[in-house]
Each structure stands twice: as C-alpha cells, then as structure tokens.
C-alpha cells in the first residue's frame, strides 16, 4: 500500500496511541526489549512517518525517499511499529520481535528489516551515519532530507560531538535531528549519572540551528519540522522535552522500565490505559 498520510493533530495523536500498543505488544511477546525509550520518541516518529517524510512502503529503497536513522537503536520497537503500520512488512512480524529466527532484531539492523536504513544499537553510531547520508545526498544534489533521533544518555558518547562538529562544518541543512530529552538513562537520572546540560547551548555552540519543544505536543512537533525546512546553511536540532514511558502511567519517568518487559498483568493494565 502507498504511504498513509495524516494531517490533523487529532489523527496523529490517535495513531500514536495505537502504535504505543504495538510497542508494548512486541516487548510483551518477546518478554524482552526497551519500552521506556520507545514510548518517549513515538510521537516524533508518528509526525515523521505520517506527516513529514516521503516513504515508500512497497519500495523501501526508492531514491525519492527521505531518510530516517534511529540513533538510539534500542528503542526500535517504536520504529518497527511505525514501519509495520505503514506496510513495510506484515504486522504479524511484530509478534516475532527478538525471538529466533526473526526479521525484527533486538537492535535495528538494515539487512534484516525493510525500511531500516542503517545498523544502530551501539550508542552514538546513528548520528554520524546520518551525517554520512546527508553528505551523500548533498554531493549528488538530491533533494531528500535526513531525519535522526538521538537519546540524552546517548549524547554522552564522544562520537556524538564529532558528528556535532561535522554537520555544521559541511553546512548540512538537509539534516534535522531530534534530541530525545527524557532525562533518564539505564543507571538513573542523566543529570546524576553524567550531566549533559546545558543541551541547547551546546548544539548552538557547535553551529546548529536549535529549537526547543515539548516532544509529545504534535502542534509543536509539526511547527518545528516546518521550521527545520527553512533553516539554510546549517543543520537543525530540535531539543524535545519528553517523558520516558509516556502514555503508560506506571512506566512514566521510571528508569526501571528502560529495558524490562511487562508481565501479563502490567501489559493488560497498560493496554487498558491506551484503549481508544
């Protein structure tokens, strides 16, 4: 099927709610995986896949596609939910997540899964690959854009800041990155584990055009994406304040739900909270 597009923020929000259920389905069936960080960026993902980007579910490698890189690759259940719903592969695959043999690996690998551009999961490796994609497109004068999501814990990796230098140096205005600022990583509060603040100032100092938004407010996400298209001569960074585990009350702001799967009782409770 062709790409589904959604215009209104109400439709986008309804889609995000449905896909949150698909995230939990995968992690529940596998009894393994990362619910917290998947739920924190899925609203951004819905805005990208249903409103912003051109993608071709029946022809994933179509050169006219915009590119997406999930740098925080552990949060791939959200990407798999998006790709399945867009028709890149059958929804039934979601139930095979992380179980041998499966097309949906624990961290996204491009040669397994249609619609996944590059391999991520080792923190810090997605953003520099996105920079490379943007360079490759630019040198060929291609009009397609590159989108990327990085985590706040992930941005402790030194290589993130190598990419942070390279993108403005090469004037990559075809690159738009979301910094998913949910405030948590595995061992707890980002601030306590290894402080990364002040985040927006860091990106500005490296030469990026920066906007700060609420990463769960579709009006703000869409406005920021429209703004990013107007940025010329430098890359765009959208610092998105988010809630880890967003949408499931008992997972919200809990580092403990970073990489733990819900048991049946919690799964059912979560589904009830996410019912239409």
């Amino acid at each position, binding site marked *: 099927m062709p790409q589904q597009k959604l215009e209104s923020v109400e439709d986008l929000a309804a889609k995000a709610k449905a896909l949150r259920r698909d995230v939990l389905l995968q992690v529940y069936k*596998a*009894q*393994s*995986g*990362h619910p917290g960080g998947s739920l924190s960026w899925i609203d951004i993902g819905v805005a990208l896949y249903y409103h912003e980007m051109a993608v071709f579910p029946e022809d994933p490698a179509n050169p006219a596609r915009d590119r997406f890189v999930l740098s925080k*690759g*552990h949060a791939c259940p959200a990407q798999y939910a998006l790709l399945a719903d867009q028709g890149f592969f059958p929804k039934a695959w979601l139930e095979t*997540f*992380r*179980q*041998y*043999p*499966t097309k*949906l*690996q*624990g*961290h996204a*690998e491009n040669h397994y899964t249609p619609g996944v551009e590059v*391999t*991520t*999961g*080792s*923190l*810090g490796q997605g953003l520099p690959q996105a920079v490379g994609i943007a360079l490759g497109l630019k040198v060929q004068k291609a009009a397609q854009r590159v989108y990327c999501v990085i985590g706040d*814990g*992930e941005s*402790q*990796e*030194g290589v993130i800041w190598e990419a942070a230098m390279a993108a403005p140096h090469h004037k990559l205005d075809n690159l738009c990155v979301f910094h998913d600022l949910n405030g948590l*990583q*595995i*061992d707890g509060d*980002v601030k306590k*584990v*290894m402080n*990364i603040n002040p985040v927006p100032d860091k990106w500005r100092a490296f030469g990026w055009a920066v906007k700060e938004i609420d990463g769960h407010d579709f009006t703000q996400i869409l406005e920021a994406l429209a703004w990013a298209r107007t940025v010329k001569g430098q890359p765009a960074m959208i610092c998105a304040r988010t809630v880890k585990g967003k949408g499931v009350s008992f997972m919200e702001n809990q580092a*403990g739900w*970073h*990489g*733990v*799967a819900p048991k049946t009782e919690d799964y059912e409770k979560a589904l009830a909270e996410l019912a239409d």
Partner: protein
Amino acid sequence: MAGMETAGVGGKVGVVMDSLRDAYGDTLVELGNEGANIVVFDADLAGSTRTSKFAKAFPDRFFNMGAAEQGMVAAAAGASTTGVVPFVSTFAMFATGRAYEFVRQAVGVGHQNVKIVATHAGLTVGEDGGTHQCLEDLALMRMIPGMTVLSPADALETKQAIRAAYAHKGPVYVRLTRDKFPRIHAEDYRFQIGKAVMMRPGTDVLLVGCGLGTSICLAAADLLAAEGIEATVLHCPTIKLFDRETLLRLAKAHRAVVTCEEHQAHGGLGGVVAELLSEAHPMPLRRVGVQDQFGQSGKPEKLLEAYGVTPQAVAAAAKAAL
C-alpha cells in the same frame, strides 16, 4: 537487557546455576572491605555488570562515566598511574570493541595496571542480538602484547579470577556473561592464572573449553562415553598466559583435539590451540564455535543450537576428527 533474568543455559535438575556477574560484584565489595586500593569505573551499565554492588558500598571509589566507554578506559589508565588499581566494566562489545584502541594504546602500550572486566560476552547475551553479542573479544584482547586474558566458567572461578587479576601486576581482561552458567567446580577448586585444569580423564579425544565451552565439553564427553569413546576434558580459563605445557602433554596422549567456546571458532581459544598444535605437535583438530558469522536475537539455548555450539556438535566434531 538490564533486569531480565533467565534460568540460564544448560540448566538441568541437580545442576547449580551460577551468575558470574553477581560473583564479580560481590568480589569487588569483598576487596573493598579488605582495604584493597581499588576504584571501579562503569559506563551506565552498573546495574547490569553488578558494579552497582560496589558503588553502593563504596560510593566515593566508584565512577559512573555515563555512556562513554572510550573515555572511561582512558581515564582508568590515567588513574592507574596514581597507585589505585582500576576495575573497568561495561558489556564486552563496548569494552573490547568500542574502546579497542584505547585499551590497546593507553592500557596496553602504556603497560598500565588496569583490570577490564566485561560482562554480556558471547551468544548467551540472547535477545539483544548481533550488535550486542561480542564474539571476538578473546581474539581482540589476546592480540594485545602484555594483556592477560581470562574466561572463567562459574561463580567460584570468577571470584578467584577477579582476586587473581587484582593481585597480578599489569593489564588483565576478564570475560563474563549475562546468563547463568552451570557450576563445574567443587568448593576446594583453586584457580591460578596460567593453569589449565583436567575436569575428566579419558583416552581417545581431548576436549578443550573455556567459559561455557567447558560445560558443553563435559556434556559432550557423556554423549561420547555412551558410544564407547573416552574423552578427556581440559578447562582453560586462561586464554593468554595460556598453559602450553598441559595442553601439549595431553594432546600428545590423544588421537584428536576439539575446542569449544561461545566465540568465533577462530581467534579465541580455538585460535590459541590451533596455533600451538600446528607449530609444536600437528594433529587432528576441530574447533566448535561461531563460524565467521554475526549473532542474532533469540534465547541463548536456541542460539547455541542454531550456531552449533552444543554437546552434540562437540561430539560430532570429535568423531569426525578420530
């Protein structure tokens, strides 16, 4: 990943299953209580590697560097020059892969007294998949001049290996795992760096293992015995500072050798044994391990089966070699 526990591979009625990483965390605390001048570094995986136990007991001697493995290894190398003995922990993929060149230069070339203890090595990482299953850490670490490389099999041996690493002057790499492994040693077992231990005497074929590989060899020896083939099982927890003498002495008394490890079949234990035998005593050899492939997601038991790292595979290799 973090927080998920499984029964462990090879779990059978009557077999005690050991967590190597819990043994590691407990031993760090013991060393701290004994006044050892250690500091511990982790990279946002303290809960998973169990350095969190030490962090709780000795918060001022614990440094969480965030998700920043390269800088963590370099910082540990620097710290070691001040007289403290740094233990550095994260997953094997990031300790030996991401930080490789820092381990080689700052720790290796620098001859620094740094102990790298990595958990979540091998196929038994399971569901996290190929990007997280480090199948080349033994090879990478073994190539660094002066690096001692250890791959213990159970909790008792891990505790002693950590103490031995602390007592040893110079860089040490210790390979630990996420999954629980069957206990193979009796309470009176004494681990020594550089010493291989005979686990089962036989006459026909020599099975050589490290880490989980030794449990697999022991199970394979049972399978072979049922067919009238008597296997000797040699456990080699030291991969570098390898016990050449014991291996060669036993190899000469058997008609074939089979190695087993949850690592690439080349480069690790299989590599050590192949290099040694081909120079000193050429003889039939088979290496059981991952055959030049990446790992993938699945339960540890399923992956070991899919990649042919099982007692059946070791037994078949032994018969093919004899």
